[in-house]
């Protein structure tokens, strides 16, 4: 057997392996994409055809459903609210969790292990489980919407979300900081950097992939949040985007095309964020996976 034949056989084997992977992955990808395709398709149908016309491309696409969903669901105001809440929650979570994770990773203080585990254990408490307690606390702080003023209720919505997002973010970031060589910090200190200087100039840039993951996951959670909004807000003008979708989802009657159009509108920003940060996120997830 010549060297050329061996190389050709190896290539063939590699290609066969690739094809086998594609055969396995394609149905998985299709099963992930089909609900999205069905959602877009249904958003272009009517209430009468949504369960009778099963084609993915409707014969007469009703693009006006998007305008109706936007207006009927009052998406204009909810969209801006959600955008503001998401930006502030992500900024809060990233800032606090990066500082906390750095501290847990680099500084030994009494009870650090206990506090770290205690913090992680709070991930087990779902927000609905703490509803009544949270309501009482926010009410005593005057952060529940009582029909007047808008900044305090908004703060009452943002702060618990930052608080709720911290454990998971710290859980992602701490191992990342652990993996950064200490020699880098020491070099920076020799060059005159203080603790915050090291953190800002050395650690944060190196942790960018993990911060990207934290930012994406937090923005997903904040963008889709609506349980807490119901607890805190009573006026619709303060509510986030998910509230708009409820306009089409009644106790008995669901307006599927408008609901689907609303859902398409609501996922666009998150998909855009993912597309923009795709490379950073994959780096972060891969790095996390390698560190185990």
């Amino acid at each position, binding site marked *: 057997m010549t060297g050329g034949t061996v190389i050709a056989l190896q290539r063939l084997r590699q290609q066969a392996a690739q094809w086998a992977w594609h055969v396995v992955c394609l149905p998985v990808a299709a099963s992930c994409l089909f609900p999205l395709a069905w959602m877009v398709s249904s958003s272009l149908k009517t*209430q*009468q055809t949504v*369960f*009778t016309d099963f084609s993915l491309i409707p014969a007469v696409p009703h693009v006006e459903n998007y305008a109706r969903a936007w207006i009927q669901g009052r998406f204009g105001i909810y969209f801006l609210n959600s955008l503001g809440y998401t930006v502030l929650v992500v900024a809060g979570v990233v800032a606090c969790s990066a500082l906390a994770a750095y501290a847990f990773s680099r*500084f030994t203080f009494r009870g650090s292990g206990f506090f770290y585990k205690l913090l992680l254990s709070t991930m087990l408490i779902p927000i*609905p489980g703490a*509803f*009544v307690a949270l*309501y*009482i606390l926010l*009410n*005593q*702080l*005057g*952060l*529940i919407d*009582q*029909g*007047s*003023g808008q900044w*305090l209720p908004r*703060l009452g919505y943002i702060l618990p979300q930052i608080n709720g997002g911290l454990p998971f973010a710290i859980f992602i970031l701490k191992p990342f900081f652990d993996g950064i060589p200490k020699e880098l910090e*020491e070099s920076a*200190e*020799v060059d005159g950097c*203080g*603790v*915050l200087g090291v953190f800002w100039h050395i650690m944060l840039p190196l942790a960018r992939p993990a911060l990207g993951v934290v930012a994406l996951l937090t923005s997903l959670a904040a963008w889709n949040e609506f*349980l807490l909004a*119901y*607890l805190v807000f*009573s*006026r*619709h003008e303060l509510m986030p985007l998910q509230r708009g979708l*409820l*306009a089409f*989802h*009644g*106790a*008995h*009657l*669901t*307006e599927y095309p408008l609901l689907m159009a609303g859902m398409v509108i609501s996922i666009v920003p998150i998909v855009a964020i993912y597309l923009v940060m795709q490379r950073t996120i994959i780096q972060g997830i891969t790095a996390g996976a390698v560190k185990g």
Partner: protein
Amino acid sequence: MTRIKSVRHLTQRGTCLTLLALAGSAVLLGIAGCGKPKAAQQPGPLRVWHWMTDREAAFDELARRYQQETGTRVRFELYAPSDIYVQKVRAAAQTGGLPEIYGVLGELRDLASFINAGHVLPLEEAMSRNGNAWRSVFFPKALAVNTFTRENAYGVAPGVYGVPVDVMNVQLFYNKRLLATLGLDQPPDTWEAFLDVGRRAAAQRLIGFVSGWAELWLIDCFATDYAIHEMGMKQVEATYRGKVPYTDPDWVRVLGRFAELRDSGVLAEGIVAMGNKRAEQLFANGQAVFAFNGTWGVNVYQSMNPALEYGVVMPPRTDPNRPMVTWGGAGSSFFVNAKSPRREEAIAFLTWLTAEPQQRYLTEATQNIPANRSAAADLPAPLAAFADDMDDTVHPRLFSVQEESTVIEAFDKGIQSILIGERTPEEVAARVQETKRLEASRRATRAARQEGGHAID
């Protein structure tokens, strides 16, 4: 050495940061403290909490009209789905944050606990003003659901507590076109004729009967209708009291009706796993001959298929000499917060909301039967059929005794097991009776323990 220095540096910074955080919290609390009295000084609109997403636009329009007529601002605040609403109301009740008007979702005991905790204003006096003027506008059955009788089991003072906004009942929808395909121009009025239609439908590969029987309450609704029809209310209540066992031949016969449904082929395939939304889709798309559904179905079918030709009848009788009944009563109700200083304003608004013009508007906008009798006088055909039968409705809340929820669950799940051919009616009856016995013995033990505790005290 450098490391020790930086840790010290950090400790100093840590102290500063802690102080800063404390100062920040103090400022936050200060701001929060300043915020509260401001809200109290300016009385805002009357607030109404509800979960009825499909009525949001209609309620907002009514609030606008009320402000135009009286100058009083009303704000309807929607919280859905219903489980979130329940949590919000409970949390608000614990902190004294309930609005002027709200709905209470759940069982009768939940409403009773709200009343006993002083969160619900008794409306007996308001209803009785001017020679029962307000009371007389409602369907009696609708008001009865929100009324506690003198010897209720919850220790609630007798009287009316809630204001019904609409009424509902659950009946049999039939598809006129499919019925004609089967050679019939009228829906069956006897049980045998109904089963026969089912057999014909099965022979022509049509779906005979759909209903959301994955949801136990709809099965319970159907079974209770037939239990009362075949045995009479007295025997049903005697069973709940433990005087008649579920193994009684009458109960076995009622359970046997489900075996007959199964054997006739009238039931849609997989009906015990079918949610009501799926059942509604099948009927709306003209795929099923019959649907057992509530008043809200009119709105759902209109929205999904305006061309659908259907009628509504009471479920067919098994005994032509006995009256047929159906589940029904108040659809949605509002309650006035007893702790609100604006109770009278709330009553005034609810009186206005349940007056004929507003009830007519709600009916047009939401396709529900109004709680106001006069507004229900000239309803369109399908709704009129429901409204006409309001006097023949029953509701478990109105029974003189309530069955234990564990027994109801065993009964309904037993019916599901009959429908899938897993158990016979006799086996189910025996199992339900066993659950009833266990529940009674548990209750007796609990009572004995309590008595023992009192004796020790």
